[in-house]
Structures are given as C-alpha cells and as structure tokens.
C-alpha cells in the first residue's frame, strides 16, 4: 500500500502540552518512551496482560501498549514521571512503596503506582480485597503482592490522615 501519512497528535502529558506527528500505527507506549523520552511506563508482556505499561488517561487506568497514540489525541495522560509532588517530595504512594518494601526488581512498579493512583481516587479508603481486585490487571513476579497491598494501604492511610499500624513482611 501507499506510504501512510503521519498525523498530528496533540495531548497533555504530565500537565505539559505536547504536539507531535505520528504514524497511525504508533502505540502509545512507544510514543511515550521513544518520541517523548518518558521511559517510566514499561513494556512487559506487550499483550495487555501484565499492566507494566499502565498510565492514567483522563482519570482512567489504561494499558497503553494496547492503544494507538493517535487515540490519545486531545487527552490528558499522566505517567509515573509526573507522580511526585511539585516540590520534589514523593507522592504518598511512592512513599508507601518505599516504606513497605512494595518492590523488589521494580519492573512492575510504575504500572502498580499509576493503577493504585486511580484506584485510590475512585475508592479513597479501600479494603484489602478491593486493593487486590483493583490491581488484578497488574502482574508482579517478585513480591507475592503482600507488600504491594501494604504499600497501597500505607498510602491510603496517609491520604486519609492516619498512620498504618503495620510493617512490611
């Protein structure tokens, strides 16, 4: 077939307006990592199962390996690079993962953090079951999930003005 024309894509990434030209077949994960240089969202399985590529788009969690960049035209995308507070201190979730040892190799962590961010915005004080169900689209091959759940509980407690009376496993 004939050469495919590149299309203009205009979106907001971590609060910053971005405009680029993309091939229609460019996946959002490749656009973020290769065109914009934001390598926080990871490529894990490439099949929509593992969740390592999870970003926030217009307030929803999306696996951006299964979406074309052009589909994000006009959207607001948040990646893990935009998660920390404006003053450079860690977001409550990042602090939770740090305190509760919510990562080992760290490969799944950006996806876990960005999924947990939306989970806590929808369910500010989740039960353990709600956390486990909420992160069911994110795979971790190291931790056994226990400390990830505790990390999210730690963040929820902080955001609700409490202190979590628990320790990492």
């Amino acid at each position: 077939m004939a050469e495919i024309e590149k299309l203009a894509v205009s979106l907001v990434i971590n609060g910053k307006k971005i405009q680029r030209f993309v091939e229609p077949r460019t996946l959002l994960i490749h656009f973020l990592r290769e065109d914009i240089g934001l390598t926080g969202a990871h490529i894990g399985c490439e099949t929509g199962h593992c969740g390592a590529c999870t970003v926030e788009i217009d307030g929803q969690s999306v696996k951006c390996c299964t979406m074309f960049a052009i589909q994000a035209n006009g959207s607001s995308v948040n990646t893990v690079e935009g998660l920390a507070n404006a003053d450079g201190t860690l977001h409550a979730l990042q602090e939770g993962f740090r305190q509760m040892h919510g990562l080992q190799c760290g490969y799944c962590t950006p996806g876990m953090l960005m999924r947990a961010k939306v989970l806590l915005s929808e369910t500010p004080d989740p039960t353990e079951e709600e956390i486990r169900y909420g992160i069911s689209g994110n795979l971790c091959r190291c931790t056994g999930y226990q400390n990830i759940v505790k990390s999210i509980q730690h963040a929820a407690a902080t955001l609700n003005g409490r202190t979590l009376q628990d320790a990492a496993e």
Partner: protein
Amino acid sequence: MIPGPFAYYRPSSVAEAVGLLVRLGDEARPLAGGHSLIPMMKLRMATPEHLVDLAGVAGLKEIRDNGATITIGATVTQAELINSELLLRRLPILRETALQVADPQIRSKGTLGGNVANGDPGNDMPALMHCLNATYLLEGPAGSRLVPARDYYQGAYFTALGQGELLTGVSIPVPPLGHGYAYEKLKRKIGDYATAAAAVVLTLVDGRVATASIALTNVAATPLFAEAAGAIVLGSTLDAATVKRAAAAAKAITDPATDGRGTAEYRREMTGVMVSRALMKAAARARIGG
C-alpha cells in the same frame, strides 16, 4: 510487536462512519476500545489497511431508559456499564457480568459494542444478550436493521454483520422489578476467558419459577441460549432434582473445545455447575426482591 501500517479515520457521525466502511471495503475495520482488535494487529493476525475510529461518533455513548427497554450505545465501555446507576437499578446483571470481564484497565477501554459485535466465543456479553433477548441495532449502506442477539452469531468470528455495516447499539427488554439474576463464570484467573459460564434471569411467583432464561458462554463456537434448560425449571420451586435436570439439559447442548482451560468433558461438566449455581443465586435474589 508492532501492528502493520494502516490509514486512520475519525468520523463524527454514524452515517459518515458507515460511508467510510462502505467506500474502503473489505480492508477497513471499525475501531472502538481496540482491546480485541489491537492485540490481533500486533500479532499480524489482523492487518486492516484502514481503521475507522468510532471514538468521535456522536450518540454512541448513551445509556437510555425507554421504559420497557434500555438501549446502550456501542462505545459505552465496560467501566461505564459498571458505574451506571440506571443499570444497577434496572439491569444489575450487566454490572455483575462487566465486573467479570478482563481487568480494570481493560474495562476502561473495552466497549459493549466491541464485545458483542466481533463474534469471539470467549466474550461474556454475547451470552448475556442471549439471556436477556436483546436486539442489536445495525446501520449499513441500505439503512438500519434490527437483529436479535439469538440470531446474530453464526460461528466463531462469523456473525450476521454485513459488509459496511456497523453495530451501533443494543436494545434490552428490562425484566420486571424484583427479578432474580446471576452471571456465574469459572475462570483460571482474573482476565481469563471463561472455562464455562452461565447467565440466568428469572422471576418467581409464590415461590415458583414464572419465567426463566439461561444462556452459556464459551462452551461452543457461539454463545448458547439454553431454551430447554429454562423450560425445565418453569413452575418449579428450584428443588435439587429440577436444578439437576436443567443443568443436564444445558450440558447437552454444549460442544466445548479441549484447550488450556480443560478437557471438553471437564468444561461440559463445569457448564452444569455454573448453571446450577446461577439458578440458585438468581432464585435467592428474586426471593429478597432482586
């Protein structure tokens, strides 16, 4: 895994979308949530030359209460089904089923229209549409037509959808207030297709089944409407012997494949278990008024 090249179109109306699909012909595919199509494109099992993105098409995002029926636009996502107060009140089995589709991220993008339109026997919504006796709204070059869900599926990935036609929504007759319902799905893990699943909607009058509808997911090349199984429970109190007979009737119409989810024998057996559980749960809900 990078999809093959394609040209991208973003129509703003159904007429424009249908016009594009007709003009571009066989090599054009509509794109909704993309969570069935894009994985296939990454594997190069699908190589469409043209994608018609429905995201900008007006009117496909609506969940409308018409009284006796509820119509749901094709690009309403699974997450939007889950969050709909109207559906929770009048068609709660949609929420129960949507919560068992894939995982939270995929439900942000995956649409009802995509789930029912493409004829993937693993999808959950087609059997639910059989159970509810829904009608699909198709728009094509010759105008619009209505196809009952029970007539739409012809084989795995083969449907009544014609060249240039677009599924724009579904129309669902609303069961009476206080009906019982259940979608019981056996799966290996969250995100998996069903090993076997059953949808049940029923009503009770004085403790006896007045109406019952049963449908099955992923135990044949198409979703199955288990008509005989539903007829068996009519008039009964859903005693153990009757439930067992209904489950046997449902199992009898299945033709599951042996795959990673189990042998055909196991999946057939599990169909019976899912039907029994769904009947009991639906009846319990009907007894407490839905």
